[in-house]
Structure formats: structure tokens, C-alpha cells
């Protein structure tokens, strides 16, 4: 009963997306109000069918109804309700179903927001979105069916991958990743629409940028949540390893970040339109490449590839999307002609260098990720590209981007005189000097770290100055108080600008924190007998003993380590070693004591017979907490920039008038 209903909903969504795509493209070629309205109806219908199918699956997981194929794979009577709900995206078929839900939500949202705007683009955009929707509905109807009937109905199921039950972050990280990945479909559709329409008007750059910024914000959070989870759960002491699964999420983030910046130039100066569109297309293509690389395995297993039958299907979709994008760009890019011109030694130039660096970064990571496949295909031998390659490339590019984040905003738009440039660029050197001195006083000697501190201080100075200038201007000109000027200048008028600088502030802190934490930490590996102590920096660690804990899905060995700092008792930390029934290697779960300045990180390497001795990996990781905090700041900045503008009556009249004009032109009956 439930499986049949689920399959019907999937088929309905496939039907709505397929027919909707055709209707949308017809409406794009021959614009009419009726065609546009029907296009929207199909978009809403697809979203509703996907939502219903997801609700049905969640209900089946909670019941649990083991006659549903997916429930029989990941469901269990023994798991708590939150794990049952999280199981929706814990394995392949369910994660594709969830993809459908998120995609439907985005399509419906984007369709609704632009329901009576941009008539020459929207049907094409909706057509592209629904074509993507049709592909995922097809996956659910065939290669990755979640609703197949199981007979005879099993009495119980195995439950989801136990690793995913390990930490609550695993319930949060995948949805954010989906909101980031799937959301890139929307700007892809908009960019395709601009190419199909053969123009990218000033009015259309705003939705393009907004719909790029929204998933970008989610993706930023998702990437860092993934690193945080690895840090808190996997026990090797790091948060990023340049694993292909991690790179899969980082690549589209890089091109999206580049696109957000080039869109500003396109909007302000009317240049780089074709380039912006290319970056947006590339972002979406990289999300599909990432999905292929992991075969949706980011969500299915931890830091490993999962073999599944949908690999070839996703590759076929990737091929179609790639060739579509190349053909569309080749056919139409010349029509997105530049209206303005770029200047060199000014903010324009900084944007250009920014874009080049981001593209170089993307290329570097892509090559490092794909290279093992090339070797495998050509020579048939296995190899992997290690961290040193990525670190060697990423450190200078990251440092340069940090510096540029200071130089760019400091420079004026357009052509700048030598005096202007000097006035803009020299004072922030004070910020650089201060941070380098603080770092040197605290013992930083590594040249790249000192350089990063210098760039970070420079950028911080510029960012704070840029946040302060409009405030000061308003306070002087109108005699307003700081609070009032802040609300008026930053939140009301300059919200996008204000949000961008908040993002920059967060990003600068993230880069500095990464540099400091990866070069300034200390660690020891020791064997401790029961009652023995070891000193690490200011910490004294004493091994108290260990105990075995048995749970249904795992056996754990929990060690107790007493922690003192400078004679003060900080309590007991309990790193553990978990052995899951489904995994050959035991997985250590570290105990982390986080503070604003540094983390104390304890991980078990081994435990002697009877718990008499403990092999302990102990680390002091400075500033790691700031990575998580500053990412929150970046997300906040993104949200501020995204918040809808409250329109003044005068401003509101224009779009409404435009919309009326359109309705009159196409003969709307509303």
C-alpha cells in the first residue's frame, strides 16, 4: 500500500517535471501569460509531489513500515525518532528522495518570488529547473528506487549507518550540504535563461546574485560543519584532509564565490557578463561532478566512495549538462556584450585578480582530485594525490585572497590616481603591523603564518574602516547617534554592502585561524600506565583508567584522563574507542575541551590489556574554535545581504509599474 502510493507520487513528479519542461520551453519561445502561468503551475505541482513523497517516507520510517524497500534497508525498531527521521538522507535512495524535496522547495520558492517579474527569462529558467527535477525523479523511478515493495516483510531492519548516529552534527551537516548543492540549480537555470534569451539585463543580475548567494551561504556552513564533525568524531585531530569527498563540496564553493564577485562587476559596470554566467554554470556542473564523485556517498558513508548503480546515470546527466552548457555558451556568449569598461589599478582590477585566483584555486583542487583517476585510466595503477600538493598550492592562493580582501575594498572604483591609491593602501599597513607584532610576541615564527597574520591585519583594518565610513558620514552629515546611523546606513540602505563586509570579516578570521591552528599547535604521543601523568604545554594529563561500554550497535572503550592546567583542576576528559559491528577498523572518538584561545584534544591510540596502560595522542590546537565562530559570522553576513529590502514607496512604484506594463503587454487577465 505505502510502496505503491510512494511510487505513484514519484511517477507523478516525473510526469509533472517532464511535461512542465516542455511547456516552459514552449512558453519561453513564444511568450504568453497563459504559458507562463502553466509553467508556474507545473513547478508548484512538482514541488508538492516531491514533498508528499518525502512526507510519506518519513512516516514509513517512523512507523516503521518494513514493506517499503528503503525502510527495510535503513529502518529499525530500536532507533529513537530523531534517528529515524535522519535516516531519510542516511543512504543512497533516501538521499536522492531528499534531494528531490530540496529541489522542489527551491523551484517553488524561486518561481513564486519572480512570479510576476522577468517575463522574458522566467519560463526558460523554470524549464531548466524542471528538467533537472525530471532527472532526479527519473533516478527515483528507476535506478535508485526508495519505494520498492519488500516481500516477505521483515520483522526488523538494521538501522542507518552507525557512524551517523555518533554525533548530532551528522543530523545537521547533510541538510545544509543539500541546501547548498541543490540550490545551485536555481542560478544555473537563471544563467541558462539569460543565455537562451540572449541578454542579461541589469534587472536580472540581482535575482541571479541573490539566488547564488543563498545556496552559497548554506554551502559555506555545510563545508565547515563537515570539518567540525570530522574534528569532533574521527579523532585524528584535524578538520580538513583534502579528501575527494571534501573537495567535492569545496569546488563549487570556489566558483560560486568567484561568481558572486564578478556579478558585482557585471551589475555595477555592465562588464564580465559572459564570464559571470560561465562561473554560475560551472558551479552547478561542479555540484553534479561532486555528486558523481561521491555517488551520493557523502551522505551514505563517511569519507569513502560508495559503489552504486546510479554512477553511470549521474555521469550521463553530467555529460548532458556539460555539453548543454558549452553549446549554450558558444552560441550566445557574444550577445551578452559589455556595456562598460574595466580599469586596471582600481577596485575593478582587484575583482579581476580575485576571479583569476579563485579560478586557479578551483583548477588546482580539481586537478588534484581527478589526477588519480587519470593515472588509473591510463596506467591502471592506483595512486593518490596527498595533502602536501594541496597544502603547497592552497597556502599561497589562500594568503593572496586574504590580502586581496583588504586591497580590493580599499581601492576606489574606476580609475584611481597614484595619490588616491597611496592614501587607500598605506594606512591599513598599521593593522598588518599590529597583528604581526601580537603574533610574534605569542611565538609565531613560521613565515607563511606571519604573512597570513600581516594580510589578516591589513584586511581587518580595511574591513572595519569600510564598515565605519558610512556610519561616520551619516553621523556627521545628519547629526545622528551611532545606533540610529547604524540602522539607517548599514541595515536600511547599505544592507548588501554591510552583509558583504561581515562575510569578509568572518572569512579573514577563518583564514587566520586555519593558518595559526595548522602551524602553531603542539602534540605528543605517549604510553601512560594507570596513574601516570604527562605534561603538554601548560596541561598535566593523568591517566585514571578505562572501562568497557557495550551498546547495541557498538562496543566502546572509554578512557578517563584527568586534566590540570597550571595546578587548576579542569575535570576529566573521556576519549573513547568505538568498534562498530559494520566496520573493520575501530574508530576513535576524541574528547575535546574547547576554549576561545585553544582546544585540548585527546584521542586514544591503544589500550593495554585490562586497561593498565593507555596510548594517548594529545594535542593543543590553538584558535580552532574561531573557525566555527567565524563561519557563523560569514553565514550571518550572507543572511544580512539576503534579507529582503524594505522598499520605500518611491522605489516600489517602479517594479510594480513594470509588472503592470508586462501584464498589459502580454494580455494578462489578472
Amino acid at each position: 500500500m505505502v510502496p505503491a502510493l510512494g511510487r505513484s507520487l514519484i511517477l507523478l513528479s516525473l510526469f509533472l517535471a517532464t511535461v512542465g519542461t516542455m511547456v516552459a520551453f514552449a512558453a519561453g519561445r513564444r511568450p504568453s501569460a497563459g504559458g507562463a502561468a502553466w509553467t508556474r503551475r507545473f513547478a508548484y505541482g512538482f514541488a508538492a509531489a516531491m514533498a508528499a513523497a518525502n512526507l510519506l517516507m518519513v512516516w514509513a520510517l517512523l512507523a516503521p513500515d518494513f514493506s517499503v524497500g528503503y525502510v527495510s534497508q535503513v529502518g529499525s525498531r530500536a532507533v529513537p525518532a530523531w534517528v529515524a527521521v535522519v535516516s531519510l538522507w542516511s543512504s543512497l535512495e533516501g538521499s536522492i528522495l531528499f534531494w528531490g524535496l530540496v529541489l522542489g522547495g527551491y523551484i517553488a520558492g524561486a518561481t513564486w518570488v519572480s512570479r510576476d517579474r522577468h517575463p522574458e527569462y522566467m519560463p526558460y529558467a523554470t524549464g531548466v529547473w524542471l528538467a533537472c527535477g525530471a532527472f532526479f525523479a527519473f533516478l527515483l523511478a528507476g535506478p535508485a528506487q526508495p519505494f520498492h515493495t519488500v516481500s516477505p516483510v521483515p520483522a526488523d531492519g538494521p538501522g542507518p549507518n552507525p557512524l551517523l548516529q555518533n554525533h548530532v552534527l551528522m543530523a545537521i551537516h547533510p541538510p545544509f550540504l543539500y541546501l547548498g548543492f541543490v540550490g545551485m540549480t536555481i542560478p544555473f537555470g537563471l544563467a541558462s535563461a539569460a543565455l537562451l534569451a540572449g541578454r542579461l539585463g541589469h534587472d536580472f543580475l540581482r535575482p541571479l546574485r541573490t539566488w547564488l548567494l543563498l545556496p552559497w551561504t548554506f554551502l559555506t556552513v555545510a563545508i565547515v560543519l563537515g570539518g567540525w564533525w570530522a574534528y569532533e568524531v574521527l579523532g585524528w585531530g584535524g578538520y580538513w584532509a583534502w579528501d575527494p569527498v571534501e573537495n567535492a563540496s569545496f569546488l563549487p564553493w570556489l566558483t560560486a564565490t568567484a561568481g558572486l564577485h564578478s556579478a558585482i562587476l557585471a551589475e555595477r559596470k555592465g562588464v564580465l557578463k559572459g564570464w559571470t554566467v560561465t562561473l554560475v554554470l560551472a558551479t552547478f556542473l561542479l555540484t553534479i561532478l561532486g555528486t558523481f564523485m561521491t555517488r551520493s556517498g557523502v551522505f551514505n558513508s563517511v569519507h569513502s566512495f560508495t559503489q552504486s548503480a546510479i554512477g553511470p546515470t549521474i555521469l550521463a546527466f553530467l555529460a548532458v549538462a556539460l555539453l548543454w552548457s558549452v553549446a549554450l555558451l558558444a552560441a550566445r556568449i557574444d550577445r551578452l556584450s559589455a556595456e562598460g569598461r574595466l580599469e586596471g589599478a582600481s577596485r575593478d582590477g582587484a575583482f579581476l585578480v580575485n576571479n583569476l585566483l579563485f579560478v586557479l584555486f578551483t583548477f588546482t583542487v580539481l586537478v588534484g582530485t581527478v589526477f588519480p583517476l587519470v593515472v588509473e585510466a591510463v596506467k591502471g595503477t592506483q595512486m593518490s594525490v596527498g595533502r602536501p600538493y594541496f597544502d603547497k598550492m592552497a597556502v599561497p592562493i589562500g594568503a593572496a585572497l586574504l590580502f586581496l580582501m583588504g586591497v580590493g575594498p580599499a581601492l576606489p572604483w574606476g580609475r584611481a590616481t597614484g595619490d588616491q591609491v597611496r592614501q587607500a593602501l598605506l594606512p591599513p599597513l598599521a593593522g598588518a603591523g599590529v597583528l604581526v607584532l601580537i603574533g610574534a610576541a605569542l611565538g609565531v615564527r613560521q613565515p607563511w603564518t606571519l604573512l597570513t597574520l600581516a594580510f589578516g591585519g591589513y584586511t581587518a583594518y580595511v574591513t572595519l574602516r569600510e564598515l565605519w565610513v558610512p556610519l561616520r558620514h551619516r553621523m556627521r552629515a545628519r547629526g545622528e547617534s551611532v545606533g540610529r546611523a547604524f540602522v539607517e546606513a548599514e541595515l536600511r540602505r547599505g544592507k548588501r554592502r554591510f552583509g558583504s563586509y561581515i562575510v569578509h570579516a568572518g572569512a579573514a578570521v577563518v583564514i587566520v585561524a586555519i593558518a595559526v591552528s595548522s602551524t602553531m599547535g603542539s602534540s605528543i604521543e605517549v604510553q601512560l600506565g594507570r596513574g601516570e601523568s604527562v605534561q603538554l604545554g601548560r596541561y598535566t594529563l593523568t591517566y585514571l583508567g578505562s572501562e568497557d561500554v557495550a551498546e547495541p550497535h557498538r562496543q566502546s572503550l572509554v578512557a578517563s584522563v584527568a586534566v590540570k592546567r597550571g595546578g587548576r583542576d579542569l575535570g576529566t576528559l573521556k576519549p573513547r574507542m568505538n568498534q562498530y559491528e559494520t566496520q573493520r577498523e575501530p574508530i576513535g572518538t576524541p574528547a575535546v575541551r574547547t576554549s576561545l584561545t585553544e582546544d585540548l584534544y585527546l584521542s586514544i591510540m591503544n589500550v593495554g590489556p585490562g586497561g593498565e596502560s593507555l596510548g594517548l595522542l594529545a594535542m593543543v590546537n590553538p584558535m580552532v574554535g574561531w573557525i566555527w565562530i567565524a563561519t557563523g559570522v560569514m553565514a550571518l553576513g550572507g543572511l544580512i545581504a539576503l534579507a529582503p529590502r524594505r522598499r520605500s514607496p518611491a522605489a516600489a512604484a517602479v517594479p510594480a509599474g513594470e509588472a503592470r506594463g508586462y501584464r498589459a503587454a502580454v494580455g494578462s487577465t489578472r
Partner: protein
Amino acid sequence: MNPKVLAAGLLAVLPLLAVLFLNLGRDPHAIESPLIGRSAPPFALTPAGGGPAVSLESLRGRPVVVNFWATWCVPCFQEHAVLVQGAQALAPGVQFVGIVYEDEEPRVLQFLEQRGSTYPSLMDPEAKTAIAYGVAGVPETYFIDAAGSVVTKYVGPLDSRLLAALVRKTRGGT
């Protein structure tokens, strides 16, 4: 149509697609064993609890599944049930053999008594056979065809679906 954009785009896209296509079906987790396709290292080992030695030689003529395991290995618990069931279902066409890795006989006997068994578990003193097979850890399972050559190996706990698939592959090779 901008031919430069088209050429540059295709130049970037086609090689990428080709590489991805060529790698379809590759399992990056599969650890290549130099034994694959060669004849399996011979052994003659005594079952846990005593009895006449079992040699690989004596099993020739039907596929053999050799599973390295230990009582201290948690994933082996779950896998044991899968293997016991599989051995029963596939008998007598396929012979299952367990080889105990770095373990003590009394523990092994207790384990087998509690959980039952449908195939012999052989003791491997000084892990000589495990070394000959290049076992890196347990569980690890080798699939040997009727002619005595290694068809494939699997690292980690098997589930019933995988076991059936790998046995099918082993039979197909004969």
C-alpha cells in the same frame, strides 16, 4: 556561434568525461592482491579442537571460500552468522574454511560453541598461512575456484548479498 568558446569548452569537458567514464565501476577500496589469478598458497592445518588436518589440496574440484577471522574481531561476530548461513545454503557445491588469525584455541572453541558453525575453523600457528596470503587484518576472505586459483579477495565483513555475488563470480571463473 563563438567557435573559440566552443573549442575551449569541448577541450575542457571531453577529456574530463572520458576519464570519468573510464573509471566507472572501479572500486577504490579494492586492494589489489598479487595472488589474484594465481594458484592459492597451499595449507594443511588442524581444526580447532583437534582432528585430522584439512589441506587446500584435498578441497580441489569445487570453489573454496577461505575466511580469516578472530574472536577479538568485533565485525567477525556479525560476519560469522552470514558465513554459517552461506555455507549451509551453498553446500556441498562450495566449501567454506575458516582460518583463525592470531588467537587462542580455547577462546575459539568457546566462540564456536556459542555461535555454532557449519564449516571447519583451522588453527594457524605462527600465522604462517595468513602471511602467505598477505592478510592485513581480519576479517578478510579469499575466493578460490575449483582449479585452485584465487579469483578475488574481500576486505572487511561480508554481508549475504556480497557473499552470494562473490561466490557467483568464483563459480563463473571455473
